[in-house]
């Protein structure tokens, strides 16, 4: 049985003012990968390249252990996608979407779609343009799930949702992943969602993958040291990842907090959140 449901290898795409640089990562089967990075870091470009929405990239994408370019149609039957700002024309209704998708996916399940509509309190016969942003997003998610996909590729699926709706959506994703054959690639900058559900975190910055690790490994091993200037000056450059100088103290991101604690005798090393990681990796200095 295949180990990875998605393998991205050396994805490179050049624009005039931006470059995706040799992006590589693997998403194991049965896992949720959080794909994080600031706006403009390359998350959407990577997802669009994986899905072939952007052409002319170099590199290889394998999904379900099949080469994406040569098995595109059969792979797409098994993928559910939510993209930022791309969806059905807004004069259509959920009923129309049901009719349309029945003619697009072999496995489209109208009953499942209707159940999601009920669960999400979405109207069947109202035009999409009359729905709130949150309802719109929930309709996109219901559409992505209703053909029994094995891989969900989600670009900012919780943006625009209030905390209650976000929690509903996260629950749906957790239900989806109960099936060991299914996986989710989840791009977001709302990292608290990922702290709840992600198994892996892949962090992209300026078109480059900075790290790709299990969430537990990341949150367990990395830490933040808060110290004064004289303490900071004693720390060797090779023992920290990045630091940020605040008004009264230094925040130092360390990769292995246990070893660091042993070596430098710091009493307290704070736990790191994914937000801390993003801020320090992007804004911090070396």
């Amino acid at each position, binding site marked *: 049985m295949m180990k990875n449901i998605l393998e991205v290898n050396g994805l490179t795409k050049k624009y005039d003012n931006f470059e995706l640089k040799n992006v590589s990562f693997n998403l194991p089967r049965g896992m949720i990968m959080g794909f994080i990075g600031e706006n403009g870091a390359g998350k959407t470009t990577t997802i669009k390249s994986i899905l072939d*929405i952007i*052409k002319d990239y170099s590199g290889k994408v394998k999904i379900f252990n099949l080469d994406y370019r040569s098995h595109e149609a059969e792979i797409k039957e098994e*993928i559910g996608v939510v993209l930022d700002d*791309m*969806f*059905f024309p*807004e*004069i259509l209704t959920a009923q129309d979407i049901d*009719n349309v998708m029945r003619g*697009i996916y072999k496995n489209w399940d109208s009953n499942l779609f209707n159940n999601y509509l009920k669960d999400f309190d979405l109207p069947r016969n109202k035009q999409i343009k009359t729905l709130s942003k949150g309802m719109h997003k929930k309709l996109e998610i219901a559409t992505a799930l209703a053909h029994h996909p094995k891989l969900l590729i989600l670009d900012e699926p919780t943006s625009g949702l209030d905390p209650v709706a976000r929690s509903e959506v996260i629950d749906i994703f957790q239900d989806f992943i109960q099936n060991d054959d299914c996986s989710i690639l989840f791009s977001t900058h709302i990292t608290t969602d990922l702290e709840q559900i992600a198994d892996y975190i892949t962090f992209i910055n300026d078109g480059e993958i900075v790290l790709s690790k299990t969430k537990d490994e990341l949150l367990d091993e990395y830490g933040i040291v808060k110290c004064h200037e004289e303490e900071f000056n004693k720390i060797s450059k090779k023992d920290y990842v990045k630091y940020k100088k605040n008004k009264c103290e230094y925040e130092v991101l360390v990769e292995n907090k246990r070893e660091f604690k042993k070596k430098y005798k710091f009493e307290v090393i704070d736990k790191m959140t994914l937000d801390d990681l993003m801020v320090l990796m992007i804004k911090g200095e070396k």
Partner: protein
Amino acid sequence: MIGFIRKDLAMIKSNFKLLAILTIVYLGMSLAGQMDISFILPFMCVMIMISTFSYDEFNNWNAYVVTFPNGRKNSVKAKYIATLLMIVIVTIITTILSFIISYVRTSTIDYINILEMTFGLIFGTLLVQTFMYPIIYKFGIEKGRIAIFIIVFGIVISGGLLSQFIDLSGVLNALSFLENYWVITIIILSVLLTYGSYRISLAIEMKKNF
């Protein structure tokens, strides 16, 4: 592919009330002799299909389509099939209404004249749409309008200049034998133009970045 056709038809259906009201107004005007319905309904058909492109573009549907199995290919194919369906529907409505108008206004029905007109109408509508679609696929609906204007302008100017320097009467004479076979000529031309236009649109769509 059937899903994509359903999508275009659903979009057209959502404007059904407006279209029905316009048709009744134009029917009334045609009965009063102020308008010829045989031209206005095909024009509406073109506008309706163009509006589906506008909705697609506005909601980034074309990028979303790429995530579906054979999405790029099927969406283009479906657009042409939906267009042909619309042309057939509009032609049937126009022909029936023309019969009614002819009978009400003259107490007779000029079958030959109306059927000839219907045939020309199908060809004319198809010609406009097969010309416009590859341009819209290439440039999008907004820039496409400008491109269509420039291309039509270029064709008219170059045609005018060509006729100044080259005697086209020989070519026209050579083609005059087609007059006797105009029905089959129009059918063959329609098929060739539609297929050619579809292939160009598809080639554009298959290479497009969103």
